[in-house]
């Protein structure tokens, strides 16, 4: 499990990415899958970038809390990301124009493509993003 709280600054995104990567590389189920590690690192990076740019509007005053857990019984990776900035409005989201390209809108699109689930909820004091990735088969007792 990884728990970090870090100032919401662009120059610290690389620290978040490397912390998440180091944790993922300790998981036997994923250590030989660099694409999967890259995709998860990118997903966390994109959510944190959104938080810094939109929730905190580059004010350098906020923080981001990240919790990464791997559930070995279900082979599921769960990443919870919290901030205390402005809310995210899904209806204002810009979708990418994949045929012609556009300046923006790719961040959440990428996250949705590389994960199994992305959930957002507004809490009493901030925002909570939950990222889920199934890393292997789930074995259930019959």
């Amino acid at each position, binding site marked *: 499990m990884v728990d970090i709280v870090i100032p919401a600054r662009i120059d610290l995104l*690389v620290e978040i990415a490397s912390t998440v990567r180091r944790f993922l590389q300790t998981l036997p189920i994923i250590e030989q899958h660099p694409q999967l*590690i*890259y995709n998860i*690192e990118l997903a966390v990076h994109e959510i944190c970038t959104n938080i810094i740019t939109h929730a905190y509007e580059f004010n350098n005053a906020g923080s981001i809390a990240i919790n990464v857990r791997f559930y070995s019984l279900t082979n599921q990776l769960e990443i919870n990301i919290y901030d205390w900035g402005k809310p995210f409005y899904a209806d204002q989201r810009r979708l990418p124009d994949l045929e*012609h390209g556009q*300046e923006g809108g*790719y961040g959440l699109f*990428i996250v949705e493509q590389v994960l199994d689930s992305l959930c957002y909820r507004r809490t009493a004091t901030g925002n909570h993003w939950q990222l889920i990735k199934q890393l292997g088969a789930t074995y259930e007792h019959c």
Partner: protein
Amino acid sequence: MSIASQTKVINIGILTLSDRFDIAALSTFRQAADHILAQTNYLVIDMAAVSFFDSAGMAALVNVLKRVREQAGDIRVVWPIAEAARRIVSLTKFDRVFTSSPSVESALSIW
């Protein structure tokens, strides 16, 4: 019969990127792109050595593409060699939006 012959010399700018092309690198990228686009509208963006590519980098690339096209120029991109970064290029269909070349030499030979 009269024949008029003309030779056109094109200046081609080459932007070579490496490591992380993400939101933290945007300011440096924009400065370099502005500097080159002030001199030419023909551009090669060499991303072969880029290991990490995010949505902010993508937006910056599209910005440069638009500026070049507005000036009737042309742009070629050498995508990352790193497989993980390259797959994101396919996922977002950037490989269809941009004209790509396998290497800088190959891109230069087209013009």
